[in-house]
């Protein structure tokens, strides 16, 4: 099922340049899922295990897909309410997902059963969870809620701020949390302290992604930009500090982001119905792909054999999980 190439692929001689100039890459639609979700796909994750993809939807379903065939491998029991947050362990054994009312589930992907369920709205005095993130190393998870709190030990870092997204760093040492006000804070798990605050965005930060070496943090915000933060340096909460690059080009909210496993490309989905692939060294977009609706979730394939481009999967407003591959690869 071949589509027209959506970008222009040009050969360039990169030997004379110090940094490779931004290339253009082409991506093609590889396959669509066999049975779409009944509602928008709000979270997606390409797992390392079996090369399968987990997706959650506003209709309350969570499905596990075979990336080659696009068929559903497994589903968990449908929840009555939409699912808003998904976090999959790097080894692909567990998937943690949260629904809009704050019920959090832990799904054992090997066994296939729900092994944990937490009704966070019953916590006295605290808000129900919104975004959840599994710790890659251990059996803990972080969750944001109305109070921008954390599951293990309440971290009251915001006064009435709504915590939109939280994400563990790949090395499991830190958690990044973003608020509806645009603030991003980094929480160090070992010392249980806030190490940095970034105020590079003034509007809600909808997505956070770490680079594989845990040194860069990419934030996607409603202000139509993605900002790359260098989180190695500790910086006071001055606006703009820590931000090393700003990726502009989207014409509406940037809803989702992901950094490729080799750390060179970034992927973003936006409410302007496009997906953009960015070259992080050149800090520019190398590909823009039009989709049919708002792109709520994007995820790179975990391991990529190709040197500079890989495959990724997206989920959007239409409820269809789509796999994309780079032109020239099979």
């Amino acid at each position, binding site marked *: 099922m071949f589509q027209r190439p959506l970008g222009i692929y040009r050969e360039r001689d990169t030997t004379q340049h110090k940094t490779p100039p931004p290339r253009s890459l082409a991506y093609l639609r590889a396959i669509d899922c066999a049975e779409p979700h009944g*509602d928008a796909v*709000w979270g997606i994750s390409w797992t390392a295990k079996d090369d399968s993809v987990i997706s959650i939807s*506003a209709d309350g379903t969570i499905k596990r897909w075979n990336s080659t065939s696009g068929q559903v491998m497994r589903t968990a029991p449908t929840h*009555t*309410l*939409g699912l*808003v947050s998904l976090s999959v362990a790097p080894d692909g054994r567990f998937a943690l997902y949260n629904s*809009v*009312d*704050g019920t959090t589930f832990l799904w054992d992907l090997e066994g296939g059963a729900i092994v944990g369920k937490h009704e966070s*709205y019953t916590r006295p005095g605290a*808000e*129900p969870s919104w975004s959840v993130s599994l710790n890659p190393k251990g059996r803990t998870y972080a969750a944001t809620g*109305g*109070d921008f709190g954390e599951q293990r030990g309440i971290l009251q870092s915001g006064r*009435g*701020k*709504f915590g*939109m997204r939280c994400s563990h760093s790949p090395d499991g040492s830190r958690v990044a949390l973003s608020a*509806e006000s645009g603030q991003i804070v980094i929480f160090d798990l070992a010392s249980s302290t806030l190490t940095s605050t970034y105020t590079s965005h003034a509007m*809600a930060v909808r997505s956070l992604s770490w680079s594989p070496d845990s040194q860069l943090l990419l934030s996607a915000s409603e202000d139509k930009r993605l900002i790359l933060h260098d989180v190695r340096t500790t910086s006071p909460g001055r606006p703009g500090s820590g931000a090393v690059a700003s990726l502009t080009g989207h014409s509406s909210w940037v809803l989702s982001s992901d950094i490729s496993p080799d750390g060179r490309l970034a992927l973003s989905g936006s409410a302007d119905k496009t997906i953009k692939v960015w070259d992080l060294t050149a800090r520019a977009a190398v590909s823009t792909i039009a989709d049919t609706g708002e792109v709520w979730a994007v995820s790179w394939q975990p391991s990529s054999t190709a040197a500079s481009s890989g495959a990724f999967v997206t989920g959007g407003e239409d409820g269809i999980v789509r796999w994309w591959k780079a032109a020239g690869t099979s």
Partner: protein
Amino acid sequence: MKPNLVVVIGTRVRILTPAICDRDHQLVPRPDPDMHPLLTEAPVNDDCDCFPDLLADEDGFNSPFEDLGIYLNSPPTPTQNISEYERDNLAPYNRSDDLTPLNMDDSDSDDCPQPHDKCRSAIGAQSRTGEALTKDAMRCAPAVGEFIKTTRYSSVQRIEAMALDFLEQLSAALPSTKEEIEEFLSKRPKVSKKLELKLTDRRKRFDSGASGTRTQIFPRGTRASIIPFAQFFRIADLAHEAIVDGLPTTKRDLFYKDVQLFKKQVTVDKLVDDLAATINTERAHLNIVNKPRSRQAVKPAEIIFHLKRASPKGLICGIGLLIHTSVGDVIHVTESEGTLIPLAEDISTLSLPNDVNWVLIVEKEAVFQTLRQLGFVRHPFSQPGTGIMITGKGYPDLATRQFAKKLSDSLPPTVPIVALVDGDAYGIDIASVYKFGSVTLRHESHNLAAPRIECIGIWTSELALQARSMLRRELPERWKRELTYMLYMRHKAETEILCSVPRSLDEPHPLVRYLTDKISERIRALALEPTPSVLANYGVDEALLNEF
């Protein structure tokens, strides 16, 4: 060399040129040293007849300013002395028929239907001239007419004082001695003195409450720096004319009188407000209104009756509320539909029901309509009674703010006045406009600000919690989906969202529930302990209260 200056002074201006007159002119001392310098009373030296000297030349009118192109509309005849001149100038106000109220015989104040203490208190409540005159003041003839005359008179006086001040500076800057004249006419004249125009800066305010001033200076750089002066004095002239002739004019008219000079409507708007602030009056007292009903010559007394009916914006909803307008209409405020709030000047009496328990000011009209349809004004809360709902439809206009202020001043301290605004910057700004006044009309904020108002914005966190708790209940699928989407989209906290959330008919509307909680909390709090700001507004001394 002619400076590029054209100043059109009002029809009747006294010109005092110290250079010509050798009398000793005593200015009336300023009552308050902190007052703006231009608020000084005009000189009242009746003995001076330098004015006729000035104009007594054979060729009629030969002012030293003529070369500069200063034109008087009509030169006064030389034989008058100052006091008569003054009388003629202000003749319109002296004529008693101007002060005859409608439907009334003239002059006998005992025929005035309003009890005099009411008239007087209306006047007495306003300690300074230039403040809003209530309708009551107009009904009573000459005694009050005096007051009106004084008010208008002082505006006229102040404009004239400004023009005089400017002319004095001008004359001081011009050469008078032979050497100076030679230098003036030489190839490279130097202007040693600068002309300054001090205006009230509406954006600056000192801690004492006095306003800052900003100064326009000529020359400053290019010769075009005279244009702000020309613009300002043109406005002053037109306002002067409007007051003296009794012809109300609008800002738009002012602009079209001299498009080339003003170039932009915004300039006119700003200058009018600057003039009003500098003279410390309201814009209406400069006879610059929004849309006068007719352009025929009307008597000054009638002007107030015909003042603006142009597009009031705010709506009010309540039970048993009556607004008596100045023209004699009675507006019944109902609970079934919103009524437009008229300007305070058009309101003669406001009769509130005894059992007003709460007042709610809403930012958005959609919310207002929703609450109105739900019959929210009938909500008794803790005790029997009803409430009043107002909306300014966004940023409130003058009428709405005046009305809110009126309510704030009149209602007892146990009645909470709350403002429901969105939890975003605009909402908070709107609440602050009601509460503290706006920047551009800061000089009138004593008329417009109501610090008693409390804000109960919809904050995002509360919204989310509410919506999420609703999700756990048994709701139809579609409704749950709507709520879920709303939460996921995380739009700025808008009260409309709570309004548009579908719910079953037997459940209380979430917005109603939210407001109920908030308002009853305020009622309880105020019943226990009225806040100091409320007390201050109401004029009750807290110490006295404690004694009881």
